[in-house]
């Protein structure tokens, strides 16, 4: 059989239709497509894809099982390395990880590893009804702070080794950024729930409505018999630009806008949490969070522009997300930097209900100058090139700074000048004995899979630490 030079395309909802609903955009492979895609894998000896995976899934082995139509077998291989395969198959940036290393990718398109992972995980979630082999308890207790990707991964790995793990979550539902940040159309919440349920079957206890640093401190957790603590408390306070008009009504941080829609279901008719149904939305920023906010605003009925100060080449969001956004009709205003957000003010009527709401945003054109320390070309503003873009809502998606609650209440926990927890890279060990950390709380805003990788690293280190103590 001749080798297919291209990946089997991912079936997706028609852009015009999906721009008006919150259903999942990508629909997933069917059995036949999955097997056929798996057959593209060369099963090469040096397995570069595994190196490209932050949690080192045995990729060629699971793909080999797919080839043989043994989808559950494939799942068992993935689940040895990943606690959240259905999530990763959807939101990992495979193009810069496993797939970027694929040997097939030298001449052709790489194997659709992410698509296959998603297929296998979805197959398992629908078809598997057997019992999970719960490991023998080893008598040790570990606390995990935060139920986002790093916390769930760390909890899963430790539970599978027999640890009694309790996850403390500040919000009313488990999942962290997977439920409050990533929209339904990219990651359905039933999938996150399913993954959380699987962890519970392994014996992980999840305590919602507990804010570590407030309700309980890290030191109190040790007092309650936990022998190690993993801090995966996630990203913190949203950043703003410090330009005039950021406190006008209709200016959101991406975190707030997405939390209202995703966590509080404000996109649904009859929801009790409000969200602005704007007509013209300007999203500031070029990362995945900016894409999520823009595409959410679009689905709520707005005409949406993304304003980014560099060019398409430097745009940090995943290529697939950018393509999806463009297909759905989102406009990119590149090489533009916001200068001021303008508010409506009726000079004749102080009580005009429109007063104080956003009515536009002034931007200035930029050119790319010399590369900065990260090698990205720095945007340089072109003097006198300001103009106004119409908008009744502005969403700031320019990153976050770490949450101060744990740092402020945990003696001996060192943070860097940005407020990120300092850890040993190979173990996730912090400056405080028995305390490990990972994910955005350490790195600042990054990806789900990097957080999972950090959770995995820490779980291994915690296991070694507690085994050595015996």
């Amino acid at each position, binding site marked *: 059989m001749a080798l297919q030079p291209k990946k089997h395309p991912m079936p997706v909802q028609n852009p015009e239709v999906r721009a008006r609903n919150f259903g999942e955009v990508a629909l997933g492979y069917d059995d036949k497509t999955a097997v056929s895609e798996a057959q593209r894998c060369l099963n090469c000896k040096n397995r570069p894809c595994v190196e490209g995976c932050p949690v080192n899934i045995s990729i060629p082995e699971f793909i080999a099982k797919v080839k043989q139509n043994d989808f559950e077998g494939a799942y068992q291989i993935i689940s040895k390395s990943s606690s959240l395969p259905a999530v990763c198959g959807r939101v990992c940036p495979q193009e810069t990880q496993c797939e970027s290393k694929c040997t097939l990718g030298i001449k052709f398109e790489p194997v659709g590893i992410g698509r296959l992972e998603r297929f296998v995980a979805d197959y398992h979630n629908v078809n598997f009804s057997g019992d999970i082999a719960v490991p023998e308890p080893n008598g040790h207790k570990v606390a995990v702070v935060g139920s986002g990707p790093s916390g769930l991964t760390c909890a899963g790995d430790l539970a599978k080794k027999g640890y009694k793990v309790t996850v403390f979550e500040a919000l009313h539902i488990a999942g962290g950024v997977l439920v409050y940040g990533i929209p339904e159309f990219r990651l359905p919440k039933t999938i996150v729930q399913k993954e959380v349920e699987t962890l519970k079957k392994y014996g992980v206890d999840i305590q919602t409505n507990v*804010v570590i640093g407030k309700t309980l401190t890290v030191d109190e957790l040790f007092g309650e018999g936990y022998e190690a603590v993993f801090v995966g408390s996630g990203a913190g306070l949203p950043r*703003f630009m410090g330009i005039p008009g950021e406190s006008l009504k209709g200016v959101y941080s991406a975190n707030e806008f997405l939390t209202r829609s995703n966590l*509080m279901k404000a996109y649904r008719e009859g929801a009790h949490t409000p969200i602005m149904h704007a007509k013209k939305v300007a999203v500031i920023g070029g990362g995945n969070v900016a894409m999520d906010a823009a595409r959410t605003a679009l689905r709520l009925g707005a005409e949406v522009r993304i304003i980014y100060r560099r060019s398409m080449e430097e745009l940090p969001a995943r290529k697939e997300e950018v393509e999806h956004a463009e297909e759905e009709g989102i406009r990119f205003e590149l090489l533009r930097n916001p200068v001021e957000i303008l508010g409506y003010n009726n000079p004749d009527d102080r009580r005009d209900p429109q007063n104080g709401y956003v009515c536009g945003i002034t931007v200035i054109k930029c050119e790319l100058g010399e590369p900065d320390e990260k090698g990205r070309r720095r945007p340089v503003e072109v003097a006198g090139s300001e103009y106004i873009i119409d908008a009744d809502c502005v969403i700031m998606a320019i990153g976050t700074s770490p949450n101060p609650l744990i740092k402020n209440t945990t003696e001996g926990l060192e943070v860097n000048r940005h407020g990120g927890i300092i850890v040993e890279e190979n173990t996730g060990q912090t400056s405080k004995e028995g305390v490990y950390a990972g994910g955005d709380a350490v790195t600042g805003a990054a990806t789900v899979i990097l957080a999972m990788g950090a959770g995995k690293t820490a779980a291994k280190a915690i296991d070694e630490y507690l085994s050595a103590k015996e």
Partner: protein
Amino acid sequence: MYRILNKRELNPTVTMMDIYAPLVAKKAQAGQFIILRVDDDGERIPLTVAGYNREKGTVKIIFQIVGGTTMRLNQKNEGEFIADFVGPLGCATKTEGLKKVCIVGGGVGCAIALPVAQKLYEQGAEVHSVIGFRNKDLLILENEFKACSSKLTVMTDDGSYGKQGVVTLPLKETIESGERYDEVIAIGPLIMMKFVVATTRPYNIPTTVSMNPIMIDGTGMCGGCRLTVGGKTKFACVDGPDFNGFEVDFDEAMARSSMYADFEKRERDAFCNLFKKEAN
């Protein structure tokens, strides 16, 4: 699920509840707040802690029935449960070193001001309290304030109880009569706090205000509760809710608090209609 152990109507628009939440009760301090959801599809609303009993594991909340969520909360009775209750959040009111303080409370804000007054009283400070209401029917917590204040002035807008007028009147009079307060702590509607600050500023009396902006997570994630304080963006949930009143941009806070006024009215109307149907 969190059980309502006690419920009492303080006036027709204000209700008090003791909620069984031992972890929160263990840590709660005056000035901090909690976030609750009444039921599974409910919104998250912040309410400032109005008291706590560490032995019984209860946290007292006092809320005004103003919107859909507080209407739903008020439907719940003793023995019933609310879905979520998390805290204590925010920073406690700083009371160390204060010897003589004037507490100014407005409306349901008095419920939040009371534990601060009690804490100051317990640490031996001299507490003067000025509490204001629209009218006599809305008066709450008079006896409780009396018990912890060496001087209590009750004001009503219409003069139906206490003295007629706004809370800043007696505050200004007392200051002008030569009373020297270490601090004035004002908790109530934004407009009241704005005028308290305008009253104390000429005398340079340190003035703390408790802000209650729109909030979702309450843990420093969403940024919805941001305020401009001293020209900088601050977050009420982690930096507050108490701030130096002289530095708060009240006009901006007032504008932001009305962002969802239309939605809230619809929610209220929807709830009232539902209630009417049930009653029929």
